């Protein structure tokens, strides 16, 4: 520093027996203007970095750089080898199958990042095998805490010695030059990680160049090239541009007489021809019992798969899978069609997706099927059952309702520290909350009147989400109390208020009794006839289902009260919660599509619930600190919450991937149906948005340490997670309920979201007030 005029600065060392004494000595030396070179201790002494004035290391950045490098290597290697250098179709999967590349990509990312950052440490700190270590003090690796410093200009060694002795030094003496280890100056310390990464580049280049040098790459192995890879066999309905009608399946040449001896039909395909057939043709068969039975048989074999056994799409396989929405045969439109028209459609195909079945079903049978359809139409009243995307009613949209607007309202208002007293805040927000809740309720009511399917689905989402909030708070509290963790003591108040939502959520769940038929296929009267559901109705039936709902809520509310008020029973609660929450997930959400099942589903639900719980606790902690209600919350707690949010966002992604990857990989038809529904249709953007909101954005936002302590970043991440959880639930419930119709955001969705905010505040605020308001008594045991 400034002490280097003519004389060489003299260095000294002082050793202490306790880290605390050393820390005090360093602080004192700095205060007195000494230059502290370094300290040497048997273990890291906390607070020393600040005392000496060391900046935080930049090694985390090196780690990130290495991680990106590892990811790039892994993805590059996998895509290049699997899709370009050695394109081998495995298990019917695409050549570039990103889900299958995730595991190796992850492992190599960790490997390169871990080895890279350790190598960086070794280089930066000059750690390498050394036979002669500068002998600063024999006890630094045992029980001595040593400081090395330069004597300040004007001070003598005797002064220093006296000062050190005063501070509790065991010994103080002058340092010989070679006792100090010189900091590695071969490479600039901070530039080293970069240099290490650069060192990797030749290796990567060589690897990349290998295929170019390899002659085989230019003259590919014939066995894997071209024809062998693509199956030559064409399917009947494949396009074939070189054939006259553009498809593989050809019509028989003109004048061909079928072997059954029938005269060819004098009709061609198309709507006009169909109408002509309707005018001209009459069903040659009479509705006798025999003809009717034959028609029934053929119908059930060839038609029921798509149109449903009763012609109303209800037991339709493809509708249940959400793949297509065939015409409802019992609808008035089809009823009005003449027999000839139906016969023509059965022969040549319909105006939309239906293929002609003239080559498969004989002419007599087609006429008999028409007979049977007429019988079906007589037997049904379409108004009750007409529930299909084919004749879906227009959705009620509200342009003003944008989820983001709703989401930002409380944060914007709450974060302004201009509300001085608790009572005022409570009043202000209670009014707002009541308004939101009432508005939301009205919207749902309107929704129920206009589009009950949609509205009931949103009641389910809202009730489930409120349950998640309540249970999330309770679960965090229980974990807290069983593990004896103390870091979150100050924010316990927010946890303690959240379970107040459970009774409201329970009532909403119970109200589904009246709407169960709209969203749960097993609750419909015709479920008894559905062989897919057969045998499961023992479990999935209204009394038992809602009995379980009632019991679960009773357990949660009672046990929750015990934990919140007396701090007891947390371990037992966790156990009971595990079982009840799992069953609740299977029941309430998974049974929306009763044919589909996934054993991880409850854990998936849990991961979302927990992530949302952390987000809500974080939001309330920050908001309440800003308005001065939780003064004891510190930056460290923000950092902890940030870490939790980050970790559980990753956990959610892990569970999501486990479910998706396994279903995608095994490719079992009944398992893939709901996912295919989202990947094939208009739901695709939302499928990916779900990942981005729950994992992608929080991961990127919270990766840095600095970001985890920033309240703004945390707030943004939390609201993203809240939106993500809502979307996640929406994607679990709506696609199967709507049977493949496009996603909509209507009155019911907006109402559900408003109600969540309104009810959330109305239920939790009074409990919270009780906790923080010194005027009121805290319940004592």
């Amino acid at each position: 520093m400034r002490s280097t005029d003519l004389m060489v600065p003299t260095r000294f060392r002082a050793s202490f027996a306790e880290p605390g004494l050393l820390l005090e000595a360093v602080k004192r030396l700095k205060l007195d203007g000494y230059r502290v070179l370094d300290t040497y201790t048997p273990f890291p002494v906390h607070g020393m970095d600040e005392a000496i004035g060391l900046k935080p290391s930049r090694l985390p950045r090196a780690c990130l750089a290495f991680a990106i490098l590892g990811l790039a290597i892994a993805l590059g290697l996998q895509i290049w080898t699997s899709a370009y250098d050695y394109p081998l179709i495995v298990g019917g999967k695409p050549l570039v199958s990103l889900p299958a590349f995730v595991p190796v990509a992850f492992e190599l990312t960790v490997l390169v990042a871990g080895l890279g950052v350790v190598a960086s440490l070794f280089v930066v700190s000059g750690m390498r095998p050394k036979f002669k270590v500068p002998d600063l003090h024999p006890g630094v690796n045992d029980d001595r805490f040593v400081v090395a410093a330069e004597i300040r200009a004007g001070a003598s060694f005797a002064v220093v010695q006296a000062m050190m002795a005063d501070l509790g030094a065991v010994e103080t003496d002058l340092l010989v030059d070679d006792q100090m280890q010189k900091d590695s100056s071969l490479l600039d310390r901070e530039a080293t990680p970069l240099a290490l990464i650069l060192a990797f580049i030749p290796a990567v280049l060589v690897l990349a160049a290998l295929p170019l040098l390899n002659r085989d790459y230019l003259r590919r192995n014939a066995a894997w090239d071209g024809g062998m890879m693509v199956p030559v066999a064409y399917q009947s309905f494949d396009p074939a541009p070189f054939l006259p009608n553009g498809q593989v399946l050809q019509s028989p040449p003109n004048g061909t007489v079928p072997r059954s001896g029938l005269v060819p039909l004098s009709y061609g395909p198309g709507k006009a021809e169909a109408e002509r057939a309707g005018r001209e043709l009459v069903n040659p068969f009479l509705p006798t019992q025999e003809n009717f039975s034959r028609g029934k048989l053929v119908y059930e074999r060839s038609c029921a798969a798509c149109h449903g056994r009763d012609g109303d799409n209800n037991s339709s396989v493809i509708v249940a899978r959400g793949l297509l929405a065939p015409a409802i045969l019992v609808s008035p439109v089809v009823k009005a069609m003449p027999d000839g028209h139906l016969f023509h459609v059965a022969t040549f195909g319909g105006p939309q997706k239906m293929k002609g079945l003239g080559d498969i079903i004989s002419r007599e049978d087609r006429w008999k099927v028409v007979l049977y359809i007429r019988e079906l139409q007589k037997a049904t009243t379409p108004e009750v059952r007409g529930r299909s995307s084919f004749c879906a009613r227009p959705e009620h949209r509200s342009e003003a309702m944008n989820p983001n607007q709703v989401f930002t309202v409380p944060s914007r208002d709450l974060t302004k520290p201009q509300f001085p007293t608790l009572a005022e805040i409570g009043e202000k927000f209670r009014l707002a909350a009541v308004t939101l809740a009432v508005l939301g309720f009205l919207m749902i009511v309107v929704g129920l009147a206009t589009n009950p399917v949609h509205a009931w689905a949103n009641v389910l989402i809202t009730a489930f989400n409120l349950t998640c909030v309540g249970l999330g708070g309770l679960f965090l509290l229980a974990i807290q109390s069983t593990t004896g963790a103390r870091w979150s003591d100050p924010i316990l108040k927010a946890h303690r208020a959240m379970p107040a939502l459970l009774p409201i959520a329970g009532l909403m769940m119970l109200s589904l009794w009246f709407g169960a038929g709209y969203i749960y296929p097993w609750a419909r009267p015709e479920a008894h006839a559905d062989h897919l559901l057969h045998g499961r109705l023992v479990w999935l039936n209204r009394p038992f289902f809602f009995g379980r709902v009632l019991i679960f809520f009773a357990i949660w509310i009672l046990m929750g009260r015990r934990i919140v008020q007396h701090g007891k029973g947390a371990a037992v609660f966790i156990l009971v919660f595990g079982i009840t929450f799992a069953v609740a997930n299977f029941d309430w959400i998974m049974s929306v599509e009763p044919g589909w099942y996934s054993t991880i589903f409850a854990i998936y639900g849990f991961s979302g619930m927990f992530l949302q719980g952390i987000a809500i606790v974080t939001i309330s902690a920050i908001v309440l600190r800003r308005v001065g209600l939780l003064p004891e919350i510190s930056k460290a707690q923000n950092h902890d919450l940030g870490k939790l949010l980050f970790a559980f966002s990753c956990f959610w992604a892990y569970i999501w991937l486990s479910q998706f990857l396994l279903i995608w990989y095994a490719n079992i038809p009944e398992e893939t149906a709901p996912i295919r529904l989202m990947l094939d249709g208009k739901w695709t953007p939302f499928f990916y948005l779900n990942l981005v909101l729950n994992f992608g954005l929080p991961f990127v936002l919270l990766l840095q340490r600095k970001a985890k302590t920033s309240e703004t970043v945390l707030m943004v991440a939390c609201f993203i997670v809240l939106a993500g959880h809502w979307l996640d639930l929406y994607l679990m419930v709506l696609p199967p309920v709507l049977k493949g119709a496009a996603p909509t955001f209507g009155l019911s969705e907006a109402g559900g979201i408003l109600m969540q905010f309104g009810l959330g505040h109305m239920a939790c605020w009074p409990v919270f007030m009780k906790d923080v308001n010194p005027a009121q008594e805290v319940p004592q045991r």
Partner: protein
Amino acid sequence: MAPEAQAFALPAEDLLPIEERRGYGHVLPLIEGNKSYTQVTEEVFSTTEKMPPLKWWLALSVSFSLLLLGAWAVTQTVTRGIGTWGLNRTVGWAFDITNFVFWVGIGHAGTLISAILFLFRQRWRTSINRAAEAMTIFAVMCAGMFPIIHMGRPWLAFWATPYPNTRGSLWVNFKSPLLWDVVAISTYFIISLTFWYLGLVPDLATMRDRAKSKLRKAIFSIFSLGWNGSNRTWSRYETVYMLLAGLSTPLVISVHTIVSMDFATSVIPGWHATIFPPYFVAGAVFSGFAMVLTLMIIARKVMDLEEYITVRHLEAMTKVIIATGMIVGMAYGTEFFMAWYSGNSYERYLFMNRALGPFKWAYWTMVSCNVLIPQLFWIRKVRTTPWMIFILTIFVNIGMWFERFVIIVTSLHRDYLPSSWAMYSPTFIEVAIFLGSFGLFFTCFLIFTRLLPIIAASEVKGVLKHEEH
């Protein structure tokens, strides 16, 4: 207490007196015996400098004999072929893969203790993490052995790695879970070894400083990388240690996830279940902690480390065992329920067959050892009595081995085609290889306990006078 302060009282604060009565937190120090720093150094390092006692040699001779038995059995397998095993076309994975999954599971506790507990600032980990990490490394070594000998031609094992070769365009199949396994296990081994070594460096420096002979000094000079306790180095070292812990946490989860995918990506009833990844991870933690406890209870007794590995450490670990054991039990229940709920007759048959079929003895061993017996840990007396913990953890080890056996063998021995139905029983060679893996594990562990400090002295010193807050 002022009335206002009383009104602010939180439940956690109410809990404190209860906790104190129970013996947590403020009352029990992490390290007993009120030791000084020198005393820690002396007690931890002196074991590595003395001639081992007779009981150590006895233990080594037993485990080394087992290792030799295993080596003989592996030689038989390699020279005579896989036909020396009891496998058949239907049950193509059995004892061998059971052992593989068993050992990988054991290997999970080490990194978990080092990394996750480090991130959660659970300071009780300090006196057990070194030994647990060593266990991880040896367990992964044992695990890695099994798939390699299962290949039948283990000298071609390197074919499982992607390397540029002269056979035209020929690469490994990156879409295969078996290849994911190769990458995951190797990564896990390398990172665990790095993590372990990094944690050892400060202690190696102490050993270098204490070394009397020239050779010893030279060896430890090489491995301690010129460590001199400088604060600048400590500061970066701690950063890197935390980064490695952060990387290891998802890594340890990914490894058993990928192992579970060896099964779950298939379409075999009993294997294809989406719950497998988290269920396997919980099972791995469960078995790993049990094994750590088994070893620690022996080690603290034999090596007089009761003051370092206190009852408090043991109790904390038994709680992890109850928690993970319950998760495993939940997974059993979920699988059963879902098999019924699915309405899939193959699934239903498989699970009925597990519980009531020819391997029902294995199934019920698994359930009683993993779900029923660990419930005894709810009793505080059991949690704080080392010999009781020891017995229970042995049960857990047995139960978790049987879990893998049940998953693998019962799912395979009843194929979709009844004509392919078969039974499985291991041959002596297979059992010998399994015993040999224990020999390998304990031989390595015993050598480790005498070669290196099994307590992380630099970390223990840091918490010696640590006030819990």
